[in-house]
Structure formats: structure tokens, C-alpha cells
């Protein structure tokens, strides 16, 4: 079974600075998707970024980018120019491209942005 590990329960960053959230995963599959979701205090899960495992190029969405290391099974999220609105719980998630439908989530990292 796949597992997703987020080793940082909490992180903090100063406004306008850069922060990196870590995620590692375990799988025997070669074709899969990885995601970062943001959960603000409203608790709605919001998609931040998606990475297809077959793509070597790291995904980027405005101030958010990932460092995808397939061999190391690592998938970190970098937030540049942090804003107060970035404060939230961030979840890393894995989805098989072949075998089943569910998302497997890590336990989350709580990000605090200091003004």
C-alpha cells in the first residue's frame, strides 16, 4: 500500500520570504500523480499544484512550485513571496494512475505566515 509522509507538523515563514514543505511517499508503481492541497481555516480543500510522475519537469503555478525527485520519492512544495493568505494546513497526496481511485494523504503541515 502507498504511504505519504510529511515530516514537518508545523512550519513558519516571514511574509515575502520563501518556504519549502517536505513530502516523501512510498510506492511500487511507476505511473501516478502527486498533489499539494491547501486547507485554510474554512477547511475546504483547495488544489494548489499537481505533478504527473511521467513528467520530468517540475510543476509550477504562480508562486508555488515543486521539486519532484522520482528516484528519491520526494515531492516538496516551495512557496515564494509568502503572503498572509498562504497560512493554512498543507497536505501532500498520492494517487495511482492505474490501480485505484483514492487519494492517499499525508498528515499535513501547518504553515504560519508572520507579518
Amino acid at each position, binding site marked *: 500500500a502507498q504511504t505519504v509522509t510529511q515530516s514537518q507538523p508545523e512550519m513558519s515563514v516571514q511574509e515575502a520570504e520563501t518556504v519549502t514543505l517536505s513530502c516523501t511517499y512510498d510506492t511500487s508503481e511507476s505511473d501516478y500523480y502527486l498533489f499539494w492541497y491547501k486547507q485554510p481555516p474554512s*477547511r475546504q*480543500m483547495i*488544489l494548489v499544484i*499537481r505533478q504527473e510522475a511521467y513528467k520530468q519537469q517540475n510543476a509550477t503555478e504562480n508562486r508555488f512550485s515543486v521539486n519532484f525527485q522520482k528516484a528519491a520519492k520526494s515531492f516538496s512544495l516551495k512557496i515564494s513571496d509568502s503572503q498572509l493568505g498562504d497560512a493554512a494546513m498543507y497536505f501532500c497526496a498520492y*494517487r495511482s*494512475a492505474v490501480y485505484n*481511485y483514492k487519494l492517499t*494523504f499525508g*498528515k499535513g503541515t501547518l504553515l504560519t505566515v508572520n507579518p
Partner: protein
Amino acid sequence: SQTIHQWPATLVQPVGSPLSLECTVEGTSNPNLYWYRQAAGRGLQLLFYSVGIGQISSEVPQNLSASRPQDRQFILSSKKLLLSDSGFYLCAWEGSGRETQYFGPGTRLLVL
């Protein structure tokens, strides 16, 4: 564009009472639909998913059930709630690409 709705937003129910949570999706057809539960301070756990009308798969055996009476409607039910059913329930949909799940606003359920 696609939107997903969940109601009610908040629910407080006594132990042993029935439950019905509803999720509807607009702007897409034949989506995959999912129910997840998030206990306090924890990640999400998949409860049920559906690939079509009347087709339900259960991930975790429990006193909850799900139904999909229409293409874009997904219902989570229980005949008798337990204290352990308290949590935050999220519905998600996935479109024709079957790659990315998008979540609704969620329902906070407190069983007393």
C-alpha cells in the same frame, strides 16, 4: 465552470439519530464522486466512491452508507449515528480526465 455543493454546512445530531448529507456537482457529467472524512487534527480518509449512478464502492466498513441516485448527486447516510462519526465530511468530484479531485466546502458533523 464546475461547482460542487454540500449541505448542510454544519450539523449537530444526537447519538442514535439518522444522517443524510448531500453533495451535488454542476457543470460536468459522469463525474467520479467521493466521500472523505477528516477527524480532528488528522488527514483525510476515503469512505466511499462512485463511478456512476447506483455504483458505490466502500473503502471502510462502518455504519455509514452512500447512494448515487442521480449522475451528479451523492448522498452519505446513516441509520444510527455513533459518537465516533463526528468529524468533517468532504465530498469531491473528478472529471473525465480521471486525474484530479476537487473538493466541496464540507460538512461539520458533531454527534452528542
